[in-house]
């Protein structure tokens, strides 16, 4: 039975979970999506602790609201939508916190490429530094563009899937991705010299 379940598609698994309340089906889906969602939420929020919480919440919401899933939609887009909404909520909460905090100097902080001469030994590789800079730049991109860029260029989802997740028309998705990329390229102009 277990072997059979692992062979099932996402949509079949959720149907099994909906119809028979099979916890194993739920567990398999969690296994399949926990890491992609974690990666997406981390790139969106930039904080491992809070993104673990967001993914946990996503899975809890999936468990509690399994019946709200409709079979005509792809399971991946459904679960990504939940995660994206929760990540946006977390971002809003953070913004509210920064509005009321006294030490709000985020605007003064500028993106700078670190000097390799003063790096710690465990971060010494070029790619690590680059990845860190890209992540920082990504967090500087406007959230509306950031979301679609991550979904498209990091999570490798199709335009149609992104359109479903964000609820935007495909044309809008494409233009937003383009603007997001342009913003990111501008922020990383020291790395990507045209």
């Amino acid at each position, binding site marked *: 039975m277990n072997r059979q379940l692992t062979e099932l598609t996402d949509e079949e698994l959720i149907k099994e979970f909906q119809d028979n309340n099979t916890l194993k089906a739920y567990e398999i889906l969690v296994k399949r999506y926990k890491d992609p969602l974690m990666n997406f939420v981390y790139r969106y929020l930039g904080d491992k602790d809070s993104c*673990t919480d967001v*993914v946990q919440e996503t899975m809890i919401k999936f468990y509690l609201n399994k019946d709200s899933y409709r079979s005509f939609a792809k399971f991946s887009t459904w679960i990504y939508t939940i995660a994206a909404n929760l990540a946006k909520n977390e971002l809003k909460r953070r913004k509210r916190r920064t509005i009321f905090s006294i030490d709000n100097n985020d605007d003064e902080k500028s993106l700078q490429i670190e000097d390799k001469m003063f790096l710690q030994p465990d971060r010494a590789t070029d790619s690590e530094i680059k*990845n860190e800079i*890209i992540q920082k730049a990504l967090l500087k991109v406007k959230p509306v563009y950031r979301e679609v860029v991550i979904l498209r*260029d990091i999570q490798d989802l199709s335009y149609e899937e992104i359109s479903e997740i964000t609820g935007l028309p495909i044309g809008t998705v494409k233009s937003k991705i383009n603007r997001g*990329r342009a913003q990111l390229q501008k922020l990383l102009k020291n790395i990507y010299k045209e």
Partner: protein
Amino acid sequence: MKNFYNDNEKKYSNLLNDLKNLPKINTPENFEFNLMTRIQNKNFGDNKNPKINFSIYKFLAPSAIVVTVILLFFLLYPQKNEIQNQVIKHQSVADTQSLVSNLSNDNKVGEQLISKNEFKPKMIKKDISNQNTVQEEKSSKIQELLNQRSISVDDYLSGATVTNKAIQRSNVVKSGEEPIVDGFFVEKQTDKKTIEKYRNALDSLRKAQLKLDSLKKAQK
């Protein structure tokens, strides 16, 4: 359209490569265990502090009460600045006024009696016409007073000459402590002569009444 975005992908090819090659972030090892424990314990992290819904209806009842109280206060509270007839306050003027009103009533009675019995003593008519002229004179005097900047009502009522003092008309009419009541003035100024005339008129009317009675008796 498709080409446009494909061209853009070429433009950002380096960036896109780097984005795709970013290290994948994985969940912690105990992620599933924690999740399943939460589910088994039914610890779904419901909000301990439920969101307080702001509703305008919650404010309707208290605001309605406040508004009602304010309205009732203004409607029922006895107004301190109530405008009172200053002439009535002044006893001498009030007496004069009552006398004048009595006289006018008596005149009416007399006229009625005269018309009924076709008895028209000339003196009565003369007195009435005198009364009218006196009143006209008085009203013209009042007008003159109004034109002046200040008056002293006490002096004027006692029959003394009018003296111009640096007091406002309203302050003369009112006591001065109470708020100013602009536009109020003593309508009928009386003096001793006028009162005397009215008394004479009253006496003549009474005499006429007596004559009328005697004529009636004689006719009988």
